[in-house]
């Protein structure tokens, strides 16, 4: 499993091995919601906020 760090606070992120694009994680240290924006290698970014036009 690839070592990952929170892009906001640099805290270590514990995650399962097979992460999928768009998967949401939380940083245990700072609480920031993160999104998997790349998988090979895994890249984390700040998760998008729920917008006014989100829904079904």
């Amino acid at each position, binding site marked *: 499993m690839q070592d990952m760090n929170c892009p906001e606070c640099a805290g270590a992120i514990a995650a399962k091995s097979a992460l999928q694009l*768009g998967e949401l994680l939380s940083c245990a240290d700072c609480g920031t919601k993160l999104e*998997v924006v790349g998988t090979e290698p895994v890249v984390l970014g700040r998760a*998008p906020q729920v917008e006014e*036009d*989100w*829904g079904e």
Partner: protein
Amino acid sequence: MKRIADSGAAIVLVFFMKLGLLQSVLTPENRMLCDSAKNMGISIELLLDSQLELLLTSPENEYGGILQRSSSYVKTLYSSFYFEHCGTFVCNPYKAHHLCGDKFLASTLLAKHKIPTPRTFGAFSADAARAAAAKLNFPVVMKPVFGSWARMVHRINDKDALDAELENREEMGHAFQKVYYLQEHIDKPGRDIRAIVVGQECISTVYRTSAHHGNFITNTSRGGIASKCPLTSELSELCVNASLVFGEGIYGVDLMERQDGSLVVHEVNHTAEFHRSIEAAEVDIPGKMVEYFVACSKR
């Protein structure tokens, strides 16, 4: 898709075009859809709408099919339009998103196609909205023309509440908030019905019961509780017909029961969520959606 042999009635097709699932985040539904595809041995590439770079002036047909699951209505519209003009099969098509996502347009079309739907007015000023409410009689239901998850869907019990609602809307900056959509309040039995239609088949129906007594909001995203609902032939036919108003695809059709038991369709959802109701539905909803999407992509 490439035709490599054609002998008599037997046509051998080799399917090698890429399939994509376009999303904003990996929602529980999107995860289920991917898992279903994987279990069928079908590869569907996950795409993030935030990462799309679309060369508008020279569209490229890279995908055989795009399963449109973006959470954003605006991004859904633009990306569906783009991919369709690349020659890609998009599920659902742009037209479906455009028409279903705008309640003003959707109600107009449902009524035009004789689908029973609550009596609804559209108005473009606060005064006209007051006049429409008077014709509907209180309580009335006001909804934004765009929006989901029952955001800003309000039951207006009297003139004072209507005035407050209209003043709030008039102060909002967006022009779409000043398009007033007022609907007859259906005195439903504390629940509504969510049906999933895939192609020309209604595959599941569940009741959605409000989490709080007296609250008319039943969306499962707002705490509504799903339970099994018998899928009758009448319900199935109505849901399929309602969905076909917007073109064949994958839909979540919402219905209410009047006091006399008759049904009205109040909404047709173009990117239906189902993860909170799949247990009650007892149907492999994502599996049926993937099968349909793949079959249409191959056409």
